[in-house]
């Protein structure tokens, strides 16, 4: 158990159901997590995994079905006012007023949060400079590029100087350059101000930007650790090569000794093995005997995506693999009712 003061967000056995009886969908299925102060925690998983629901329950925007959730020691359900005061939040469909200028949007958010005019006078220019928006203060929000809108949303969410920031898929649909800039801003926020950041994302590569990662799938956390440690959860070491015949190569390699897992990656075959040097030779030999050549054989470092696939594949065999229908498929599950 961690020192209380160092924990910013905590959930224990958190459960969230939508709907009743036969139509019931479990969006969050027993999630226990801890976000330490000053940490950037990435809740990472595909669409429908339950990331948004988890975030909304933590914030007290949705009623939890069971379990506990709190921010800075304040209960999500009971202490919503205390949470609002101390927490910044950018929702997936974060709405800026399109017909207000950048500056007017900032002032609007400041007023909503009760920031005094004196504080506004120094904070707003500072935040606009931080977000690189100083030259655009008079531009209407509707005329900003996608990347600039996200930066403005970030600046607005910081106007009341929150200690914790929750971001729901902030880089969805953002171009690569703006995505990079946005993450750089989050990094600076962490380094300069010590803000605790909780971010949901479907992009596996964004895990590299976090100090701690929770991989979420079908309402459950399948792994939770530093990105480095999660990448080590893959079985063995990873060989990559381009076989001349994919299907035949995949079939044959899977039967060889020391081969722990096989994944396809476009025209490349990813093979997890116990001893790369020895298995490399054996794979080449076995495939050559069947007339399959291997190009560009080398050992590579597994990325978050390989780790996620490996973890899910192993978990799926425990789960009901026959299920064609995923929980996320029920219309409206993520947007469901019973909002507080």
């Amino acid at each position, binding site marked *: 158990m961690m020192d209380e003061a160092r924990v910013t967000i905590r959930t224990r056995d958190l459960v969230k159901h939508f709907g009743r009886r036969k139509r019931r969908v479990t969006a969050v299925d027993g999630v226990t997590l801890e976000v330490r102060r*000053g940490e*950037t925690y990435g809740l990472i*998983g*595909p*669409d*429908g*995994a339950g990331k948004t629901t988890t975030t909304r329950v933590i914030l007290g925007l949705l009623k939890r079905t069971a379990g506990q959730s709190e921010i800075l020691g304040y209960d999500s359900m009971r202490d919503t006012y205390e949470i609002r005061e101390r927490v910044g939040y950018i929702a997936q469909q974060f709405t800026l007023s399109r017909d207000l200028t950048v500056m007017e949007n900032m002032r609007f958010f400041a007023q909503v949060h009760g920031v005094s005019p004196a504080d506004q006078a120094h904070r707003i220019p500072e935040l606009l400079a931080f977000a690189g928006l100083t030259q655009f203060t008079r531009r209407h929000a509707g005329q900003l590029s*996608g990347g600039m809108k996200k930066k403005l949303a970030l600046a607005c969410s910081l106007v009341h100087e929150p200690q914790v920031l929750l971001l729901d898929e902030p880089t969805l*649909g*953002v*171009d*690569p*350059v*703006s995505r*990079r800039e946005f*993450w*750089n801003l989050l*990094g*600076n926020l*962490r*380094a*300069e101000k*010590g803000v605790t950041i909780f971010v949901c994302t*479907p*992009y*596996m*590569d964004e*895990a*590299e*930007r*976090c*100090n701690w990662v929770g991989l979420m*799938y079908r309402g459950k956390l399948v792994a939770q650790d*530093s*990105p*480095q440690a999660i990448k080590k959860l893959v079985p063995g070491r990873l060989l990559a090569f381009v076989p001349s015949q*994919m299907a035949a190569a995949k079939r044959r390699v899977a039967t060889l000794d020391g081969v722990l897992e096989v*994944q*396809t*990656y*476009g*025209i490349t075959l990813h093979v997890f093995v116990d001893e790369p040097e020895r298995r490399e030779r054996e794979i080449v030999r076995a495939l050559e005997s069947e007339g399959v050549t291997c190009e560009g054989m080398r050992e590579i470092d597994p*990325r978050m*995506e390989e780790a*996620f*696939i490996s973890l*899910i*594949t192993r978990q799926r065999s425990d789960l009901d693999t*026959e299920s*064609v*229908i*995923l929980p*996320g*498929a029920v*219309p409206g599950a993520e947007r469901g009712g019973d909002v507080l």
Partner: protein
Amino acid sequence: MSEHRNQDGHPILVENLSKQFGDFTAVDDVSFYVNRGEVYGWLGPNGAGKTTTIRMLLGLVKPSSGQCRVLGYNPATEAKAMQAQVGYMSQLFTLYRDLTARENIRFYGQAYGLSGKRLRRREAEILDMAGLERGAGTLTANLSGGWKQRLALGCAIVHEPEVVFLDEPTAGVDPISRREFWDLIYGMAKGGVTVLVTTHYMDEAELCQRVGFLNRGKLIALDTPDALKESQMRGRVLEISAEDPDRAMRVLRAAQAEGRLAFDEVALYGAEIHAVVTETVPGPARDPDEVLVSDQDPVSDQVAGLLSEAGLTVHGVVWIAPTLEDVFISAVKAR
């Protein structure tokens, strides 16, 4: 299969193609070709001109200038003749939610003029390809994202086209479904189908045989992913690990602000710091995994020195291989 114009030429050929919408240039003098059976990727942000180009290739939008040919046809004037040999799946593909998987395939098959034996054969082939035999009778509304995506692809190729355009086909699906989808793409390509796929996922672009970087309507680079990493990356990426990365970051940013360091970019990556360094450094051979805290490398020495001065223990300062994202950003910034 019906006849087509140039058996030997490139299935997709684009020369000096431009498209203006009023004052806005959506596509700006773009030229490229795609080989038969090739999986060609187009990487670029929203608004880069990816979709407009595909629309011109489909004959839905008329080019302002320049030429394009798909299987030898001019899409602007011969779209009807071309259609039977071209498939298209967009990011907003439409499946009928109240039809079953099989009924959707049948519907699209009939729309493309398939009937009788051929339609039944294609139904079976597509259900098999998409792994949907068990789900054939499931209402499409109840299929998960990955299954819907594969079914949509099946419907887009029900008429056995020779060229397939996929516009951001895997947005939002989980990584396993995405891999499965790519298995299908390469399965098609192996059968000689030519595939042009657009994406804004960096790791997806890496799956293509050749990738074009598109930015503001211009094709700014085009090559294999590995070759792009060689040719388009200006500068190198330094990975810095030190105790207390937040403080290390503050030290480096302060040094940067004072002009003591000349990084193009310095940013936190979890527990590490990445710096992009364009200043040319005379140093030893560039093995990406080699630790270069040595006399021969002034930049990493300088970084290690600054951090030690600030009282931080330095765990490592290492040159790392750039990701395709590093390369894309470098290519965009160079223009």
